[in-house]
C-alpha cells in the first residue's frame, strides 16, 4: 500500500512536470484559459453564492444564540460572523464544495477523453496533451478562485444582514458595526492564499486522476470518486498546516 502511495506521488509530480512544460503556442493557452475560467469559475458563482448567503444567515443565528450574555456587546456577533467567514468558511468550506463540483467535472472530462483515445490522438500529433488540457484548468482555478472567496465573503455577510434585518435578532447597526470592527487585512490574504492552494490541488489532482483513468466508463467513475476523496482529505490536512504556519 505504501509502495502504491509513493508510486502515485511520484507519478503526480512527473505529471506536473509534463503540465508545466513550455506551451506550444501562448495564444492557444490564453484561449483555453478563458474557456476554463468560464467553465470552472463563472459556472461556480451560483452555487457558491447560494450557499454563502444561507451560511451567513445561519452563522448569525447560531452566534447570537450562543452570545446572549447582556454584558457582551451585540456588535461582537457581526464581528464573529465576519471572522468565521473569512478564516474558515469562505476558503475551506467553499473549497470542499468545489472539490465535488469542479473535481468531478475535471476528472470525468479528462477521464472520458483518455478512454476514448482522444488524449492518445493529441499525443500522436506531437501536442503536449497534459499541457494543453490541464495547464489552463490549473491556471484558471488557481488564479481566479480568490475572487470566488471574496464573493462568498460578501454574500455571506449579506446573508447575515438579511437575517438581522428580517428577524431583528440583534440591532442592524450593531451588526454593521461588528462586521467593520478590528479589520485585519492579513486574514483576507490568508484566506485568498488558502483558496488558491486548495483550487490548485482540486484542479491538478482531479486532472491527474482523469489523465491516468483506465477501465472504461467504470474506470472514469472510479477515478472521479478517488479524486474527490483524495482532494477532500488533503484540503483538511493542508488547512491545518497552512493555518499553523500563517496564523500561529
Amino acid at each position, binding site marked *: 500500500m505504501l509502495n502504491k502511495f509513493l508510486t502515485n506521488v511520484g507519478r503526480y509530480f512527473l505529471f506536473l512536470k509534463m503540465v508545466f512544460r513550455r506551451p*506550444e503556442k501562448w495564444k*492557444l493557452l490564453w484561449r483555453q484559459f478563458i474557456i476554463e475560467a468560464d467553465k470552472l469559475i463563472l459556472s461556480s458563482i451560483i452555487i457558491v453564492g447560494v450557499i454563502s448567503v444561507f451560511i451567513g444567515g445561519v452563522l448569525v443565528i447560531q452566534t447570537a444564540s450562543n452570545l446572549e450574555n447582556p454584558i457582551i456587546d451585540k456588535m461582537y456577533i457581526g464581528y464573529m460572523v465576519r471572522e468565521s467567514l473569512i478564516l474558515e468558511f469562505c476558503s475551506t468550506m467553499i473549497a470542499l464544495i468545489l472539490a465535488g463540483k469542479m473535481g468531478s467535472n475535471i476528472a470525468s472530462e479528462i477521464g472520458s477523453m483518455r478512454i*476514448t*483515445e*482522444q488524449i492518445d*490522438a493529441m499525443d500522436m*500529433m*506531437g*501536442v503536449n496533451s497534459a499541457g494543453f488540457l490541464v495547464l489552463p484548468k490549473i491556471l484558471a482555478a488557481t488564479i481566479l478562485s480568490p475572487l470566488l472567496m471574496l464573493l462568498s465573503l460578501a454574500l455571506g455577510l449579506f446573508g447575515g444582514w438579511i437575517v438581522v434585518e428580517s428577524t431583528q435578532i440583534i440591532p442592524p447597526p450593531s451588526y454593521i458595526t461588528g462586521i467593520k470592527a478590528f479589520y485585519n487585512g492579513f486574514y483576507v490574504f490568508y484566506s485568498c492564499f488558502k483558496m488558491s492552494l486548495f483550487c490548485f490541488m482540486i484542479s491538478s489532482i482531479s486532472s491527474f486522476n482523469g489523465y491516468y483513468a483506465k477501465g472504461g466508463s467504470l474506470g472514469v467513475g472510479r477515478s472521479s470518486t478517488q479524486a474527490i476523496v483524495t482532494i477532500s482529505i488533503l484540503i483538511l490536512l493542508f488547512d491545518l498546516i497552512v493555518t499553523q504556519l500563517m496564523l500561529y
Partner: protein
Amino acid sequence: MIKVEHLYKSFDGVPVLKDISLEYESGKCNMIIGASGSGKTVLLKNLIGLLQPDSGDICYGEDKLSEMNYERQKALRQKIGVLFQGSALFDFATVLENVMFPMEFFTDWSKAQMRERARYCLEKVNVTGSEDKYPNELSGGMQKRVGIARAIALNPEYLFCDEPNSGLDPYTSILIDRLISDLTKEFGMTTVVNTHDMNSILEIGDKIGFISQGSLLWQGDRHTILKTECKELRDFVCANTLARNIIEGR
C-alpha cells in the same frame, strides 16, 4: 520506410510480441493482420511510440525511435497521422475545428488558410456540409472519414490506421478502404493498417504481415495470401466465406 527489428513486448511478464521483424514501404498499404488478441494493436502502439518495447528497434528512415529525445519524437509525430479505432475525434470541437486542430499547433497559417486546408481535406474524404457539426452528431462512417481528414491535415509521411472498418457496414468499409488506399498512393505515404477484416485485406493489402499469439508467422501480399501454406493463416483466412470459396475453388 519503417523498419522493425526483433521487437519484444510483454505485460506483467506475459509476452505479447515475440521477435517481430518487418519493413513497411512507402506508397503502399502495409497491413498487420491477425485474430483478436494476437498483438496487432500492441504492435501498432509500439510503432507510433504510445508503448515502449522491452527490446528491439523501430526505425523511421535512419532514425531509431528509442534513441530520439522528446523534441525529436515531437517533430516525428508531426509527420505521422493516426486513425484510431474509435476515431478519437475531440468532443469539444466541431468537424472543421477537429481537422484544423493540428494546424493550429504546428503551422503559422492564418485562420482562413487553415479553414481552406481543412475543407480541402474534408473534400478528399467526401465530407461536405457537416463542418459545423460535433462528432456526436455524425455516423460511425462519417466519424472515420473526419478522422482520416484530420490525420492527413499536415500532409503526413506516415499514416497508421487501427481497425478502420470496425463497426462499419460492408459498403462503408470498402469506401473507407479505397479512400485509405487512394490517399496512400496520392500522397506517397507509408501506410500501416491494422485489421482482421478479410475484405480489406483482399482489397488493399499491398504488403501483409500475419501475427498469431505475438509472433509474425507470415508475410506476403493480397495475391499470395490465398495460396499460403501457413496453417494458422489458412484457418484465419478460411473463417471468411468468400476467401474460403476462392481457396476451395468454388
